[in-house]
């Protein structure tokens, strides 16, 4: 089965899926001669819904490919709905939607072809801060990191209101791992201290096709894990993952300026403490341009064992408090 939905009908299809999702958790998709039928039934079998989209609804509609018998399938409503999750975005950016059903590989493929307005590229802003504007600066020339601005601004506005100096610790990817290390932003005074740990993107992520028009808020890697069988212990609790990292980095590498944070009670020690290379599993990224979630978690766990060749210590860059800056 192969069909193509274009223009305003993409949104109509999306709305139909949304309304079906209110009823059942599974979607029955069946291409018929008189159209594509989408059906669902609720768990208590007290409600049934069906949408039949006539061939004219599609720009192209092919119920059966020659030689193949008619196919039909049942899929998770959640999966299909995810494609049409944001109707507003679908309406604005999707030009056409191609749905195909392949019996041999048992796959339903939905492809959204989007349009991009060439004038609406992101504005690029660059600011350089001179050495004299820092309270302390120790950085390797040419090192560059990319992190999520939106997340950083939270700490920035706190530092500004509390009139505190902000320190940044970051590192270039070390020799033992090619994964980007997080950047640590910190504020401290006699009464409190705060730490923000933000993931950074590596050079290769930056140069991937998805990065043509970078918008920093899209670059933040998803920190929620995929729930995968053997790492389920950590899948649900990322805050604790961070705390392991903070705790162990302080212990193993005293040169880091990260103070230790007590582990929350009841936290189990990591069960796969291998160095980075052992933790690599071929799991694709959830979003283009973001580091794979699994590898990201490995990043923290790997730091538990001091790498064979210690990477250079972090480069603390202390910025003056942001009072007076726009």
């Amino acid at each position: 089965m192969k069909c193509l939905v274009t223009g305003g009908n993409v949104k109509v299809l999306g709305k139909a899926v949304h309304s079906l999702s209110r009823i059942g958790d599974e979607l029955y998709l069946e291409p018929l001669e008189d159209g594509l039928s989408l059906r669902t039934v609720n768990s208590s079998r007290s409600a049934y819904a069906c949408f039949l989209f006539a061939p004219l609804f599609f720009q192209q509609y092919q119920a059966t490919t020659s030689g193949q018998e008619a196919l039909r399938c049942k899929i998770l409503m959640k999966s299909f709905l995810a494609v049409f999750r944001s109707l507003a975005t679908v309406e604005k950016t999707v030009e056409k939607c191609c749905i195909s059903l392949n019996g041999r590989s048992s796959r339903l493929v939905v492809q959204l072809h989007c349009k991009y307005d060439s004038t609406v590229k992101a504005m690029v802003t660059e600011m350089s801060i001179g050495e004299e504007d820092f309270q302390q600066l120790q950085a390797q020339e040419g090192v560059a990191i990319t992190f999520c601005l939106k997340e950083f601004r939270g700490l920035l506005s706190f530092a500004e209101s509390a009139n505190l100096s902000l320190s940044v610790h970051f590192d270039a990817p070390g020799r033992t791992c090619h994964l980007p290390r997080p950047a640590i932003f910190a504020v401290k005074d006699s009464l409190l201290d705060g730490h923000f740990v933000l993931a950074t993107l590596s050079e290769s992520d930056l140069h991937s096709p998805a990065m043509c028009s970078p918008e920093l808020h899209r670059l933040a890697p998803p920190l929620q894990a995929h729930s995968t069988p053997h790492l389920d212990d950590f899948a649900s609790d990322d805050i604790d993952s961070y705390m392991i990292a903070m705790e162990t980095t302080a212990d193993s590498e005293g040169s880091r300026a990260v103070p230790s944070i007590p582990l929350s009670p009841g936290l189990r020690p990591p069960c796969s403490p291998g160095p980075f290379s052992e933790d690599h599993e071929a799991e694709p990224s959830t979003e283009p341009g973001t580091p794979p979630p699994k590898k990201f978690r490995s990043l923290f766990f790997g730091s538990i064992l001091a790498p064979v060749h210690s990477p250079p210590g972090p480069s603390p860059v202390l910025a003056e408090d942001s009072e007076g800056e726009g």
Partner: protein
Amino acid sequence: MKFRAKIVDAACLNHFTRVSAMIAKLAKTCTLRISPEKLNFVLSDRAASAGENFFSEFQMEGISAENNAIYLDLTAENLSRALKTAQNARALKIKLTNKHFPCLTVSIELLSVSSSSRVVTHDIPVKVIPRKLWKDLQEPTIPDSDVSIYLPALKTMKSIVEKMKNISNHLIMEANLSGELNLKIETELVCVTTHFKDLGNPPPASEDASQERPPEQMAEVHIDIRKLLQFLAGQQVNPTRAVCNLVSNKIIHFDLLHEDVSLQYFIPALS
């Protein structure tokens, strides 16, 4: 094709920032018309001008000698946001550049705490508009109006028009040479009219025009209320001067002056 300009005066910089913010409120995309004498912001059916008197330096070279102008499309909010970082700047430079794609590069020199300069650069992507589309973006000819009247406080007008919008999309604006302006909506169930009196009329352009027309006679224009509301919503500050020119059944022309920035806004009559 070249363009570079510089602002060093704080007051000029403030003006420019405010104009840009106003434009950003009025429309998503705007066109910049760069001509030898000035820079204009053009929105699809209205136009605002920012005179060259903002800039201490202004150099441009259009696409050719006969067509000595540059038309650029950009996202209004980008320019407005870039200029917001120019508060208390020492200097602002704008120039047309090509960094993978055509950009308007806004360079702002800020004074940092350690009293050295810090430069913030914004590269705003722009689209160069081809010559053949220029005719739609010319400065509109201001038609001879039947009635010219000073507007009441824009904020008052805005709150009234906002309420009227809930009742009807069709608004009638009428005014006469006795300083009276009415905003009317008419539906099957209800008619609502707001009367403004003693507004005053600007002196007529020519002697004959004022003598011909009876002072009580209303000139009326039927318009889409949403266009009026969009215009009123975009006015953050009360203008120095606000005049409304009506051409019966044809067009309403708002002529605003914000200090030395003039904004012309046209709303055509509903057919």
